[in-house]
Each structure stands twice: as structure tokens, then as C-alpha cells.
């Protein structure tokens, strides 16, 4: 293989890489928001943003591998039915290995820093007068009660723009409490209370699904939730039957 064809093929590979990277970035920018459920909370904004950032960051790496593989398939394959002669006997290239390691380490460090930052935001509670909701999972129904109000309900009702603290537990086996539109998920464990915070910021209806396999009717352990304005929420609470 002459030097000129080698350079040419490398140039072609670079173009392929660039094109694939652009495709990857476009997918990264638009696909998550298009496919994922409508965001209804601060956590969900962060979730979608993280998805976008990670996809964009991964795009050049994946594109590099794909571009090389494509070139291997089109330019470096042996034609004919005989046994191919040997390729260049390159066993090691310290520069390439070092560069590869440095780049992948840097990418990992970036992912980690982003992840830790997002984790701090995601799990943090602002502590400003959160609405506490007790969530109880049992096979195969969720029930919600609002401490201090004697109200409990098979559906979840939340006020807009107020932080909610879910205190989640289960009565029989482990269930998974997940609001897909809000990017919050935590298991409901027997004998333990796990908490999770979120702040709904869009009015509307959402589904609560069980994500931890819980037996016969696992697929039907779905409940509707509603985000109401503060006023609507207060009047909903008042309209509910009081329990001792």
C-alpha cells in the first residue's frame, strides 16, 4: 500500500467519521426529547438534558469505531479466493495506545463530574415546605395518603410548583415506584421507608408504573396521577372523605 493511497483513505475515513458524528449528534439532540415522555418536573428536565449530553459526547467515539469498521469492510478486505498474504506486522503503537487511554479517561472523568453534579441536584431537597405524600405499594395497587389531612386516595394528586417528598413503602413484596414523566424512581421495600423528592412544574395527568417485578398482575399496577394548581389541589383535598 503506497503512502498516497493511505493518506487518501485516511482522509476519506475522516470525512466518514465527521458525517457519522454529525448524525450521532443530531440523534442525540432530538431523539431523547422526541421519544421520552413529556417532562413534568425539574428532575425530568435534568434527565433529558443528561441523555442529550451523553449521546452527543459518545457520538464521536462511536462514529470513530464505525468509520474504521466501514473502512475495514470496504478498503482492507482481501479480494479473491486464495489465502490472503500477511498484513503489516504492527504489534504495538505506544502513541496510539496512550492517546486512546488519555481520551477515554478524559471522557470518563467528564461523565463522572457531570453525573456527580447531576446527582447532587437530582437527589437534593430544597427543604422549602415540601408536601409529604405517603406512598404504599401492595400487590397490585398503589395507595397514597397525605399526612396531616386524613385523606387517602387510589390516585395521586399533586400541586404545581411545590416540592413533593414521597415516602415510599410496601406491605408485601418489593415494588418500584416510578413516575415516568418526572424522572423519579425508587423501590418500595417492606419494612423500610425510602424517600424521593421532585417538584412538578407542568399541569396535567401522568402514569405511575411499578418497575420492580411484583407477581401476577405486575403489568396492571398502574395508577394515574394529576398535577393541579395549588388552589385546585386544596379544594380536591377538602372534597375527599376524611378518615379517622
Amino acid at each position, binding site marked *: 500500500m503506497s503512502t498516497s493511497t493511505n493518506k487518501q483513505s485516511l482522509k476519506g475515513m475522516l470525512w466518514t467519521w465527521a458525517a457519522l458524528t454529525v448524525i450521532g449528534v443530531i440523534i442525540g439532540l432530538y431523539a431523547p426529547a422526541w421519544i421520552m415522555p413529556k417532562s413534568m418536573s425539574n428532575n425530568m428536565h435534568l434527565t433529558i438534558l443528561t441523555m442529550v449530553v451523553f449521546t452527543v459526547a459518545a457520538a464521536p467515539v462511536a462514529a470513530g469505531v464505525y468509520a474504521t469498521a466501514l473502512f475495514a469492510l470496504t478498503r482492507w478486505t482481501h479480494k479473491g479466493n486464495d489465502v490472503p498474504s500477511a498484513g503489516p506486522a504492527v504489534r504495538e503503537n505506544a502513541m496510539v495506545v496512550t492517546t486512546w487511554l488519555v481520551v477515554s479517561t478524559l471522557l470518563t472523568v467528564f461523565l463522572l463530574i457531570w453525573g456527580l453534579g447531576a446527582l447532587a441536584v437530582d437527589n437534593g431537597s430544597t427543604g422549602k415546605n415540601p408536601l409529604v405524600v405517603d406512598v404504599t405499594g401492595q*400487590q*397490585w395497587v398503589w395507595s397514597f*395518603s397525605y399526612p396531616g389531612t386524613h385523606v387517602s386516595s387510589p*390516585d395521586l394528586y399533586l400541586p404545581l410548583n411545590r416540592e413533593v417528598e414521597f415516602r415510599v413503602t410496601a406491605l*408485601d413484596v418489593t415494588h418500584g415506584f416510578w413516575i415516568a414523566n418526572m424522572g423519579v424512581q425508587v423501590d418500595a421495600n*417492606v419494612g423500610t421507608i425510602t424517600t424521593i423528592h421532585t417538584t412538578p412544574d407542568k399541569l396535567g395527568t401522568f402514569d405511575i408504573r411499578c418497575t420492580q417485578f411484583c407477581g401476577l398482575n405486575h403489568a396492571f399496577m*398502574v395508577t394515574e396521577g394529576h398535577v393541579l394548581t395549588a388552589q385546585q389541589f386544596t379544594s380536591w383535598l377538602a372534597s375527599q372523605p376524611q378518615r379517622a
Partner: protein
Amino acid sequence: MNRSKSLGVALASVLLGGGALALAGFALASATPHQAALNCVPSQSAPNTCNLNLSTFPDSMAGEQGKDGGVHPDWVSYSNDNLVVPANTTVNVTIDQYDSGGSLNNAFFDQVMGTVGGTATIDGKTVSSVDPTNVGHTFTLRGIPGSGKTMFVSVPLPADSNTQSVNIGQGQYTKPVVVQFSFKTGAKGVYEWNCEFPCGSTREGQFGEAMSAYGYMSGTLTVN
């Protein structure tokens, strides 16, 4: 082997294998037990209304599940698991509750929820909740997941403390608690219902055995 022969073998593999799989699947689907449908009987007196009669037994000898023996005759059961009702109709349900009971693990289910008027009639008395320490079973019906067609009906069935005995088929039971309630059906579809009183007699949460097996303490409500 030449190409065309290879292609032939490839096609034969897919056809033979796929055929065998399809046959196995067909056999499996038809071997899955299915109870006969219990249709809601249209009411003579009121329009757009029908009547549905169910029972809950401490065993499964008298209901559909165990009438021809059944695998677990000693498990608690509803009389039917395959209920069929028309859409946009008021369904009057009468449940004869023959089983004893105990405490609910979640007192939430002592409420009558989602029925017409939010009440049920138990042995002639109209109530909106019952004693959570003396419940036999519940009838809890819910909507199709994520379809927007929500329906949530939950009625507690108090434990049967009668002593007078009655005979059903070859079995002897105590005189039942009669629970009556009505609910309105929504859109067409298959809805799932089950009992939320942990009566499955296994250790963890007591939702095993009859509670975790199809056709005993759970079933479907087909709205069409």
C-alpha cells in the same frame, strides 16, 4: 453443497423450525385454562342496567375453578374469573361472601370506592366503609394501564361470621354475607380485578398460592 441447495436447506430450516414453534405455541395457547364467561344479565326493571352475581368461597370446590376437581381444591376462590359486561351500563353486583377473614394489611381497603354513590349494601345496610379488622376479601377492579380509561372500584367484603350452614353442590358452607353495589362501566376493553385482602396463605405478604395463581382470587372484566 452448492448455493441453491444451501438456500433450500436454509428455507427448510426456517419452515420446519418455525412450523414446529408455531405448533407448540398453538398447543400452549389452547392448553391454557380458560373459564367460561359469566355474562351480566340485563335488568328487566331498569334500562341500561344489568345484574352480576358472584360468590367468594373458602375453597374452590363450588366455583368455576374447581367444579371439575381443580388442582388446588383447598384454595380460596371467587366463583368466576371471566366477567363480561356491556359498555356504558350500570352493573349491579351481588357478591355472596362465604369465607371467614381477619385484619387488612392496608386499612385503606376498608373503604367502598368507585361505586355509584360511594356506598355498598351489606346484608341490607348501606355503608361507605367496614371494620378493617374483620374483612374476608375485597373486590378491587382497575383500569387499563396507561390508556386513560381509568376505572377504580374497590369494595370490601366483610368476614362471614354466620353459623347457619347451607349446601352448595356437595360442599357445606356457612350462610353468606351478601354485599351489593353498583358501578358504571366505561369504555370497551379488558379490565383486571383481584382481591386485596391478603388471603394467600404463604408467608411473605400472604399473596402467594391462590392470590398469585390465575383464576382463584383474580380475574378479568371484559367490557364490550
